């Protein structure tokens, strides 16, 4: 057996959804039996802050990593990047069932070349993020994780540098528990408080700094290279995704937001969603900028500050930008519009 081990991190869902818990448990049960894998379970990735043991654990992982979470892979990958847990994007072959037909067209649907500024100080390893919402049975994940583990080993062998350090201190590949010895499962799984902050996808971000101009709560800043960073994540206003709406490259994600495009969905991957009853329960739908301005004003007023409306930080390019094509949620919203609530 190869010395190269792959760390599998399962990030639990928030709340008490029994179907989600069941999938998590069956995955962990199956994965700890697999040779060459180190399996750990942490709470909901988005919520753990730098004090949390789960974060310390993630920081301690040096090699290739597979992260299973209830987040869009882009959101999970870039929030890890923001937290200093960096690596190259591991391309997964796991596709939600609805996307299968598109595989044949792959040659024609070349992804746009990345025009973002990219990540800095990327570590020499790969991080694969899998979305636990894609399938409700463990098997597709297990197949993909085995494939990824093989891919990682092949890559390591190609480098012709034997890995000398077994990070998990396992003796003779003995099956161990679900965590690294330095961190007990109790510590790892301590329920974190809930957080809310933007996650920047640097493969899309062009550093135009529109978000920095628009946000009036000091969430954004620039680093020593004048690159945009989410400097004060926890100054962000819970529930407010306004900066994401004004980003021209759709590079800002709020993984918790209900609209898939803002939560970090790949284009065209919103099939199989639950019905959205927001309109029935009293929502209003507006264009993106007006909505962003409203959201920002509401948070300003809540902070005892003056609402600024369209007077501050409004991106000029938005004026002639066509609305995004309607998605299934919009269609539902239209149907609900007729209800005249």
């Amino acid at each position, binding site marked *: 057996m190869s010395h190269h081990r792959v760390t599998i991190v399962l990030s639990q869902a928030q709340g008490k959804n029994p179907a989600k818990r069941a999938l998590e448990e069956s995955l962990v049960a199956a994965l700890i039996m697999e040779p060459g894998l180190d399996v750990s379970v942490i709470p909901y990735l988005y919520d753990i802050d730098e004090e949390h043991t789960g974060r310390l654990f993630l920081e301690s992982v040096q090699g290739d990593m597979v992260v299973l979470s209830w987040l869009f892979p882009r959101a999970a990958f870039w929030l890890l990047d923001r937290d200093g847990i960096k690596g190259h994007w591991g391309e997964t072959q796991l596709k939600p069932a609805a996307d299968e037909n598109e595989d044949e067209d792959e040659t024609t649907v070349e992804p746009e070349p990345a025009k973002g500024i990219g990540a800095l100080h990327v570590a020499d390893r790969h991080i694969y993020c899998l979305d636990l919402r894609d399938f409700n049975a463990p098997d597709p994940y297990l197949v993909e994780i085995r494939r990824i583990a093989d891919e990682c080993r092949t890559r390591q062998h190609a480098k012709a540098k034997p890995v000398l350090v077994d990070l998990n201190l396992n003796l003779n590949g003995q099956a161990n528990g679900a965590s690294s010895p330095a961190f007990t499962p109790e510590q790892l799984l301590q329920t974190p408080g809930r957080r809310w902050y933007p996650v920047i996808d640097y493969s899309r971000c062009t550093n135009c700094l529109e978000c920095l101009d628009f946000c009036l709560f000091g969430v954004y800043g620039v680093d020593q290279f004048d690159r945009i960073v989410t400097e004060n994540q926890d100054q962000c206003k819970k*529930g407010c995704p306004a900066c994401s709406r004004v980003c021209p490259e759709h590079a800002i994600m709020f993984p918790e937001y209900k609209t898939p495009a803002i939560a970090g969905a790949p284009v065209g991957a919103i099939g199989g969603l*639950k019905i959205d*009853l*927001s309109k*029935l329960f009293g929502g209003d739908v507006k264009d993106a900028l007006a909505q962003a301005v409203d959201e920002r004003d509401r948070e300003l007023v809540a902070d005892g500050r003056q609402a600024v409306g369209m007077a501050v930080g409004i991106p000029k390019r938005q004026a002639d930008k066509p609305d995004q094509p309607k998605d299934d949620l919009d*269609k539902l919203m239209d149907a609900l519009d007729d*209800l005249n609530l």
Partner: protein
Amino acid sequence: MSESLTFLMGKYPAVLPADLRYARNHMWCRPREGALRFGFTSYAVRLMQDVYFLDWSVNAGDALQHKQQIGHIETSKAVSDLFAPLAGTLVRFNDEVLKDPSAVNVDTYGAGWLFEMAADESDTLSVQEYYNFLDANWEKTQTMLKGHM
């Protein structure tokens, strides 16, 4: 005291107690000392089914506008933003339901209450008015639901 009304959602009877007031966003409203207590009507619960996750984006003490977004819910059948049923001040949330939202399903009009607001009750509907509101919109609601599910 008058009897409760039952709105038939297909074969499912959504019971609407007569001693409650109602809001158009499908919440019931129970006037209590100094505040109005709100929860989902059995009509709303039937559409959502088992509640898995409830989250609030405002805090106790916040002034709310009518229809302001105040939270989010995930259930076995649906997700939805949640909105203020009236303008007023949020007094407190039901912490028990935040920890374990299943009370919304098992005791919809009792332990499953969501929050209390200081607000003007006169903008709410009587049980008959709410029934009529459901009746008038049921056709369109069904069309919408069928189109989606």
